[in-house]
């Protein structure tokens, strides 16, 4: 995890090697992080190419071949309606990957502006927004999301928007911290002195410095998003049938636990691997950030 060293000696470090290139090079040298990136890319390809990869129609029921064990005609077996579990797992990749993106997107949409405001202006806006973040963080994300789903009604988008709202204070904190640390630097004062507008200041000076920690935090939150989607779908208040995500598959497997315990294994394992991949990638990215990008 953190065994890979952050302080790799620079083989090439001329003016041509920008911070981003150096970052990528350091990231590629960390086997766990790079492997995780590959896993995620492969899953994205799987999601896109699901119709080509899936051996069967994921929704085709076969009441004769119900609860088949793995092997034979069905590599991962069938569920209680005789649907091919491998095909469902492959198609499930789509929502499973899309859901955390929605959550993190919504979280960033709220958290980034709020963090910029709090970090840049300080004082009262900062105090108010920080208290709001504290309040939201004293509830488990899952419970906060469930409360909102209760009001808006269960659906994939509603559930993940709610999760995004629950994520927003975490993004807020990172952006606020990064903004504050840039804000006190000389060049901001200098820019002010030469008459830069606040909008321009934020766009030119603050945002680029906030980007690095924000991307790391977003990656970590994608992992939590996978967990949240699976949890909400498991409870039946997230992704709604006939749509299928890995969380839905896991729930179906759990309902069938005494009949066919094996149904719970592939989807649970897939969720765990995906969460691990986002975790390793986030750790690796954090370690790869050079001093020039590492803030907050």
């Amino acid at each position, binding site marked *: 995890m953190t065994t890979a060293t952050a302080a790799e000696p620079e083989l090439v470090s001329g003016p041509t090697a920008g911070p981003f290139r150096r970052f990528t090079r350091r990231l590629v040298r960390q086997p766990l992080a790079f492997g995780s990136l590959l896993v995620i890319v492969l899953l994205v390809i799987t999601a896109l190419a699901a119709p080509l990869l899936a051996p069967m129609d994921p929704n085709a029921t076969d009441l004769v071949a119900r609860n088949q064990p793995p092997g034979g005609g069905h590599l991962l077996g069938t569920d209680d309606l005789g649907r091919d579990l491998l095909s469902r797992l492959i198609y499930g990749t789509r929502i499973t990957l899309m859901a955390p993106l929605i959550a993190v997107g919504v979280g960033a949409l709220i958290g980034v502006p709020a963090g910029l405001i709090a970090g840049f202006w300080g004082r009262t806006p900062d105090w108010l927004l920080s208290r709001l973040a504290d309040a939201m963080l004293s509830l488990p994300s899952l419970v906060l999301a469930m409360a909102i789903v*209760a009001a808006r009604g*269960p659906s994939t988008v509603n559930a993940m928007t709610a999760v995004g709202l629950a994520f927003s204070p975490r993004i807020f904190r990172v952006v606020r911290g990064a903004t504050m640390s840039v804000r006190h630097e000389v060049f901001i004062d200098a820019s002010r002195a030469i008459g830069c507008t606040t909008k321009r200041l934020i766009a030119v000076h603050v945002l680029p410095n906030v980007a690095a920690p924000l991307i790391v935090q977003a990656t970590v939150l994608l*992992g939590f998003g996978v967990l949240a989607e699976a949890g909400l779908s498991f409870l039946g208040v997230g992704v709604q049938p006939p749509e299928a995500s890995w969380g839905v598959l896991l729930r179906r497997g759990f309902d069938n636990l005494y009949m066919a315990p094996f149904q719970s294994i592939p989807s649970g394992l897939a969720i765990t691997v995906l969460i691990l991949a986002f975790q390793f990638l986030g750790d690796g990215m954090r370690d790869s950030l050079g001093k020039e990008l590492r803030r907050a």
Partner: protein
Amino acid sequence: MAGYAVRRLLTAVPLLALIGFGAFMLTFMIPGDVAATIAGESATPQRIEEVRRQLGLDDSALTQFGRWAGGVLQGDLGTSMIHRIAVTQMIGERLGVTVSLVAFGLLIAVLVGVPAGLVAGLRPGRWTDRLVTVLTTLGLAVPAFWLATILIIVFAINLGMLPATGFVPITENPLRWLESMILPGLAIGAASAADVARQSRSAVAETVGRDHVRTSRAMGLRPRSVVGRHVLKNSGIPIVTVASLQVERLLGAAVVVELMFAMPGLGQLTVSAVRARDIPTIQGVVLTIAVVVILVNLLVDLSYAWFNPRLRKR
């Protein structure tokens, strides 16, 4: 000390007020005709009107909030739309189960996590340290509900050692209660144990290198006292902090795991309330959980004074 406690208590007030306001606002997030939605699809117009009156939806938002907040302050969280029972009563009946499950999970997290962190932190870089690192990474990635599934498959279905369902109140039969707590406790506690182990490891590794630990050794104290008293107490604040953060995590996991083990706690209540869009119940659950989390944080802050005497005498 007393002054510190009071000041710390006061910071909880705006937090609770904000959470209360947010919970109240849930009603306004319902799309379309709130009364119709809450009453359900098959409701008669009379029923919809009844709901509207019951919720006081005709009044202004401010009046509604004032009425609701006034009730909350007197311990009245409203009436469940589904069960037609006071929310306070429903929560009261179920809180004990959830709190005992969370406490059990926390106990597992501390009993496993702190020793694991100690073993790893006392000898950084050793194979024990690496093993702990691998296990904590895995522990943090495995979702509680999948771990619960596996635990049920192994211990309930294959080995038949422990029950997968059927919660027994501690007052009825303490031994059966313990049996019914082990699997769900492990399921929700594993990730917390991993987190506690990770933080304990770094806290212990830092403390071991301090001068005063060398003094303890120079005075011939046994390793048991050096580690158990001097290292542990000085690593206490980060360990207690991370342990307290687990309460939030455990409550979240408990919601799912209670359902899996058919435990009549807040989780079950929440899930059924979300499905039925029973807003008053949800509001009550949100407030209750927030109070529990904030209360724990408060107690933890006060415990810092025990670990660091400087805070006490200021």
